[in-house]
């Protein structure tokens, strides 16, 4: 395990972390999500070494770094508000950390030029940070942190102060840069777009506790905690590929050749996509019925959960777990119980096809 955080507890008065456990493999990209005030930034700053935990350990490549000074950890950080040194120009900002590691001025210059080109800020190197746009400032901040080739790059809501277009542009850019630099990254965000577009791993933090960590599809489709389920809002997410497209309907083949029909059009045939269906859009019935609904599937109820005034039903269809939500009276009417066969129906318009560039927000609406 590249980064291993065990039972980390931090008390800063207003903010605290309780028994945080988190692990990352080398070159993983983890997006840490959670509501405001959940302790996301405190966790990042504790990993960076700015706060001391009163309990727990942080291991980096097996080495205990819990009490190691921040400057010895090789963990750099990018903040939402950029924090560019105002007394230095863009070049000097980027060069700041590199100068500590290298003496060779030519090498420093060539490394800065390479990264600046990659981040499309090579024309801004002489500029004062104050004169840059938000997106330019953030690219400079990322360059400054990335140029030192850190063990881990921490990013604290790096895109949240930017407009939507700039966010989309930066997301693409970051993807490419991360590939090029092969950096392990922990990215704090409250935006599900970041999870979908960038993350290999996602962790959900609430009130100082990591509730769940895992692959994006696992966390979103199999939330292990009520809060996670409520927070992520979307449960039925499947990997698949578009196998056919005609008359405004895309056929998406998911696990074990199960085909779902979606009214979302997707031009990249045979390219991997994700499909998502909100639980409340699934209609349950004991028999199939004739209607305009394009998706009607038979499955086996594997779990029934009574959560507040709702009943959550998990149904297995060819190894794919679908989750739906109904009222207790509907549950009684249908005789919902574990092991029962049931029909699931959902409109093609409610089957959302997503790729890395799509907005996850649409699923939340």
């Amino acid at each position, binding site marked *: 395990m590249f980064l291993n955080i065990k039972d980390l507890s931090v008390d800063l008065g207003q903010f605290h972390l309780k028994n945080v456990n988190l692990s990352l493999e080398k070159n993983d990209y983890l997006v840490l999500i959670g509501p405001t005030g959940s302790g996301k930034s405190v966790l990042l700053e504790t990993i*960076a070494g*700015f706060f001391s935990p009163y309990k727990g350990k942080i291991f980096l490549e097996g080495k205990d770094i819990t009490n190691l000074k*921040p400057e010895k950890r090789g963990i750099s950080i990018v903040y939402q508000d950029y924090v560019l040194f*105002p007394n230095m120009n863009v070049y000097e900002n980027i060069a700041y950390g590199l100068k*500590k590691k290298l003496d060779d001025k030519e090498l420093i210059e060539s490394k800065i030029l390479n990264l600046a080109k990659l981040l499309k800020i090579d024309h801004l190197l002489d500029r004062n940070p104050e004169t840059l746009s938000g997106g330019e400032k953030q690219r400079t901040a990322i360059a400054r942190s990335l140029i030192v080739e850190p063990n881990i790059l921490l990013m604290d809501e790096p895109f949240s102060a930017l407009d939507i277009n700039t966010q989309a542009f930066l997301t693409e850019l970051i993807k490419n840069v991360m590939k090029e630099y092969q950096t392990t990254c922990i990215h704090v965000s409250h935006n599900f777009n970041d999870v979908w577009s960038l993350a290999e791993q996602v962790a959900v933090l609430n009130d100082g506790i990591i509730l769940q960590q895992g692959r994006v599809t696992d966390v979103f489709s199999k939330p292990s905690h009520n809060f996670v389920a409520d927070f992520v809002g979307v449960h039925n997410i499947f990997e698949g590929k578009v196998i056919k497209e005609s008359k405004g309907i895309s056929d998406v083949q998911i696990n074990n050749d199960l085909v779902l029909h979606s009214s979302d059009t997707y031009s990249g045939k045979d390219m991997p996509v994700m499909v998502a269906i909100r639980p409340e859009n699934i209609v349950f019935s004991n028999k199939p019925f004739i209607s305009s609904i394009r998706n009607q599937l038979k499955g086996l109820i594997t779990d029934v959960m009574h959560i507040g005034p709702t009943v959550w039903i998990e149904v297995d269809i060819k190894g794919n777990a679908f989750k739906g939500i109904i009222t207790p009276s509907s549950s009684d009417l249908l005789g919902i119980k574990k092991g029962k066969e049931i029909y699931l129906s959902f409109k093609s318009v409610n089957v959302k096809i997503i790729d890395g560039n799509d907005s996850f927000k649409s699923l939340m609406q």
Partner: protein
Amino acid sequence: MIIMRSKLEIIFISISFIFTAFLFVIIGSIFIIPSPDGFLQSIFSEEMVTALKLTLSTSILAAFFVMIIAIPTAYSFSRYSFPLKNILKSILDLPIAFPEIVLGIALLMIFGNRFLGPFLNNLGIDIIFTTTGIIIAQFFVALPYAVRILYSTFNYVNPRYEFVSRSLGYGEFETFRKITIPLAKGGIFASSVVTLARCIGTFAAVLLVGGGTYLKTETLSIAIYYNLSLGNIDAAITASILLVIISFIAIFLLEKYAHENIEGIG
């Protein structure tokens, strides 16, 4: 373009204008009253030259020592949590609240024939009625002001600048030197100027600890008091003019760099 102003706006702006103008006239009157001959005679007199030299040399030294102590003190108040921090801050603020003469008496007590005085005398160090005494009095009078300004300055410097610097491999002191100090330079300069002005203008504490001996420990402010007591108005006003000029330069620089400080930290 015609700007419509509310009544409140007009009243408040008028008050600020009237009383600033009044203060300006009061200060300006010092420059009108003395006779040119008396002024020239006084300014080049041995007493005035000695007082000016003594005031500037002791004040610069005292201000230097104040800054050496005030920077780490204010930084620790701004950045670190430690026991008794609030009590320490209150104690440091005390001299701002009570009259300077009280501090003078306290210094006289501690460096006089009781407490530290005899011990320092045995080491060959004389404080009372010496130039050293003047510097010590100026130091303690000015220190709280410097700490206050620097405390606000360091509070304005976002600690995340330091976090980023440290995450990029720089140690605590290197970060302080390369990031914190440059970002706080405007405030440090402003604080230095106020400290220097405060040291130059110190009167009661310097009189009590330094003794105000003619041509020996007589600073400009003491010279005003002595000459006024002896009815030597020209000399008193000359010393006042010198103090006003020095203060004006200090405040002018302070205003100029205070602006830079705020913009720099932004």
